[in-house]
């Protein structure tokens, strides 16, 4: 049974599977491409939220702000944070900008909105959907889990958004390879 297997790199396979190159809009009104502008060649921290969320979004965002401060000037240089809207129809850039300001989010952290179908596709690709459709449909019940990863090195993992901020900061440095190996345990 001779078969020719595609010789696709793991990095490229991951890009095709998980990172559709969608056009999105930032909280600063800038148009960006998901893979090319937000993920490629970066260490990233990814989660989903919406501006008028009364549940887990605010505490997770506040916790991630602590993480951002602990990572200091690395954020925006080689570590980037992305929060994708779960309700892109209500979250226009202005609403997201207001949310970011309200949480005192620093530079290097982008809030993203766009076409609802695009963000829904992305949410599913990145595994942020609940397998129970009834639960999944209830946006107030959305996941507080946060992905982190190093795109060029295909190291990907996750943490509960409400775990301790200094533990999260250390965790993110696990994928910071090969630099800062002294901090990796």
């Amino acid at each position, binding site marked *: *049974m001779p*078969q020719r*297997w*595609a*010789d*696709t790199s*793991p*990095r490229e*396979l*991951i890009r*095709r*599977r*998980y990172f*559709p190159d969608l056009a999105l809009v930032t909280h600063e009104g800038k148009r960006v491409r998901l893979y090319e502008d937000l993920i490629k060649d970066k260490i990233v921290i990814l989660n989903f939220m919406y501006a008028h969320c009364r549940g*887990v979004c605010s505490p997770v965002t506040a916790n991630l702000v602590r993480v951002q401060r602990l990572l200091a000037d690395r954020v925006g240089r080689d570590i980037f944070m992305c929060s994708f809207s779960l309700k892109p129809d209500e979250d226009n850039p202005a609403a997201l900008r207001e949310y970011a300001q309200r949480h005192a989010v620093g530079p290097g952290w982008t809030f993203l909105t766009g076409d*609802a*179908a*695009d963000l*829904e*596709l992305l949410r*599913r690709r*990145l*595994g*942020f*959907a609940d*397998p*129970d*459709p009834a*639960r*999944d449909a209830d946006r107030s*019940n*959305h*996941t*507080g*889990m946060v992905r982190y*990863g*190093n795109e*060029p*090195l*295909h*190291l*990907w*993992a*996750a*943490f*509960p958004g*409400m*775990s*301790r901020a200094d*533990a*999260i900061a*250390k*965790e993110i440095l*696990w*994928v910071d*390879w*090969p630099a800062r*190996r002294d901090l*990796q*345990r």
Partner: protein
Amino acid sequence: MHITRYRQKKSLEIARRNRLEIVKARLSRREMLKYGLIGSSGFLVFKNGLSQWASGYAHASGGGGATGTSPPTRAFVEALPIMPIKQPVSTLSGPAPTIAPNTAGGEGRTRAHQAFTSYPSKFTFPVATKFEVHQRAASVVMSPDLPPQPVWGFDGRYPGPTYYARYGQQILVRNFDDLPPPAQNGGFGMPSTTTHLHNAHTPSESDGFPCDFQQPGQFYDHHYPNVLAGFGSTHAPTGDVNESLGTLWYHDHRVDFTAQNVYKGLTGFYILYNDLDTGNETTGFRLPGVPDPSGFYAPVKYDVPLMLADRVFDPSTGQLFFDLFNFDGILGDRFLVNGKIQPFFEVEPRRYRFRVLDSGPSRFYQLFLTDKGSNTQIPFWQIANDGNLLPQPIRVNNIIMGVAQRMEIIVDFRPFAGKTLYFENRLEQVDGRGPTGNTLPAGAGNLIMQFRVKSTGAADNSADPATMHFYKLPDKTAAPRVTRTFRFERTNGQWAINGRFMDADCASPRVRVKQNTVENWILQNNSGGWMHPVHIHFEEHQILSQSNAIDAVDVSRKDVHRLQHSQQVQLFFRFRDFQGRYPFHCHNVVHEDHAMMLRWDIDQTGDTNTTP
């Protein structure tokens, strides 16, 4: 049945919604095929969200092969591999072992070996019996229909070599991390590692604690005392023979990355013999087994470890595929035993002892022995649960397993000379949440492996299982110092235990147990439609009570409890002999990596927190 139908309806609904979403996202059918979003049948390969690649469970098709996302593979074309037995060495590579961690010499261990100072008359240093193992990248063939697979394996093997050890003979395993840097991980896997010896009565610093990982280029000396629980407390100085362990396994336990590293191949068996369970069917319990004439470190014939695993392979590259963006649990559509997809095993018409392990990552099994004809539930003997011999064998026609569980069985092939039998997994499971609760009809499950029974074979000197008796269950009537409750919950898609999350640096214990005391732990599943195979390190437990009926085979010593929907179970523990930190976690390794875990310690004072 009701639940199943509901689930199927829901799956169809999800598939429909997925399709609508893709249509909305304006992907053409050609693009969808290209991205592997739909199979050639036109059905979505994802059942529950686009990131879930595995098709749930694969139906056995006409030729016995399997269908699903993975490329087609033939069944029963390769023989079952038997893992080599790990050989001791007279000298180790690198510096001589030390009790304190040899950081300057390249060791990743951070704490001193405690047994030599706590019990100097029992454990002498240096340790006479030494092993050296190297974790490294390798290429293995899982099916002749797939390209060679890049794996990480102990000694470059998947599964790794099998350790044989004997009670009363301590060993030291020097474990080298020779894994390549992440850029060469083939798409998943974290090359810093910590190796856990599952179910062993191991001092904390050698247990493979999730945060005790070493870096590539380092080594880690594990001291395995091979000692019976109670040796330093209730049953000094030898320990309680009724606490004897049999089938253990070792696997990577790197915090956040365990699922990837285990999927990548970092697993193997560790088998403990003693004066009763001897590996020789003419002595002791007379369990099936004939030692090799070359000595102890060679496979015992008729005593066969079987490591079950399910995997997915990328349809375009044919390479192992790990779903990185999945929080729920990962199911494969290909079933491997000892590293081969659906192997065959030539057996003699006599009794065999099988040590069956569910190595995950997320699947539960219900295994039947079938001839695919009129005998679809051939009875056999279950002799052990979680690798521990039961008080006596129990006649069963299937075994149910969650991830990390080891069930031992004796199958008598004598009535089947010249015939062909199969293991069929009939437990329906469509996603990582756990089985649906439905046992599929005979023939509708997955054939895991094939047994080709020869017409003649060697003499069988093993005892009739109906006459066997093993160990008595240790006393579980002692009053607990504290009874603690652990609620397994799911809040906003995050796993919590008693409302709190695991911090990835494992910095502080949630529970402090006082050394040499008894505790009762109540586990409650409040997480909705999820099941969790919960594993507690170091000390085994017995079930005191549970909210549903207790299976006969669960009246035993255990290290994994399959926590079922809305179930509550009360467990008896006696924490003895060593001190230090250990984890307690869900062994669906995807749940584990997403923080369904907590750290508990044994120390000299303990706490009395009833809901930690």
